[in-house]
């Protein structure tokens, strides 16, 4: 399984702090997004937001980054700390 987590505004939009998907459903970050969008049209719309960022195992990555079973994939809006 791939662990997927959401933060901040995205977490509230999706009404979920995270889920899991089978590693068979996705081999890249972009495919993780597609797989999540198939579950729910609302999710699909929110995940289509171009400003969303993605980290795999705590490292910032782009959509073509490969994922595998056991990875932690996080989606979140641009950061606003400090």
């Amino acid at each position, binding site marked *: 399984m791939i662990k997927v*987590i959401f*933060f*901040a*505004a995205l977490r*509230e939009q999706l009404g979920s702090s995270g889920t899991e998907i089978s590693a068979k459903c996705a081999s890249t970050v972009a495919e993780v997004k597609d797989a999540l969008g198939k579950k729910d049209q609302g999710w699909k719309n929110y995940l289509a937001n171009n400003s969303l960022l993605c*980290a795999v195992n*705590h490292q910032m990555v782009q959509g073509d980054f490969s994922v595998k079973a056991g990875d932690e994939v*996080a989606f*979140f*809006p*641009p*950061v*606003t*700390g*400090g």
Partner: protein
Amino acid sequence: MNIDTVMNKYAEISIQTEDFDHGYEVNLLESDNVEDGAVVTFSGRVRNNNLGLKVKGLFLEHYPDMTEKLLAEIIQTAKTRWNIGRVKVIHRIGQLAIGEQIVFVGVTSKHRQDAFAANEFIMDFLKVKAPFWKKELTELGETWLEAKNSDKEKAQAWSK
């Protein structure tokens, strides 16, 4: 939730719900450290207004583990660019009221220019890289803050 990640004697990162004591942190940075004559600190607090809206408070969320990793990377980069001694970064999370402290960055150095530059560098990259998100409670309700272009430009300016 209170995560204390002590990297080593010379750089410490703390993400915490609790408030911090500015004077105590400066004393720590200076204690047993007579090599560095200069200490520069930055501290940020919750303002009472933002973009003209009256603010009642803030909620701060972060991505545990990744935050500490990102901040450690920023500090390491600062250490390669400037001749600095100790670094302490504190960032609070959770519910914060007007006037409460949010963030502290303290840097020591032999010569003041290094501490000034490294401190501002760390703050500029913390703003655009560290996975924190602020939700503002204003007179019009709750809103997640949008990232500012001006912050992105400040961070980019360091690579010029």
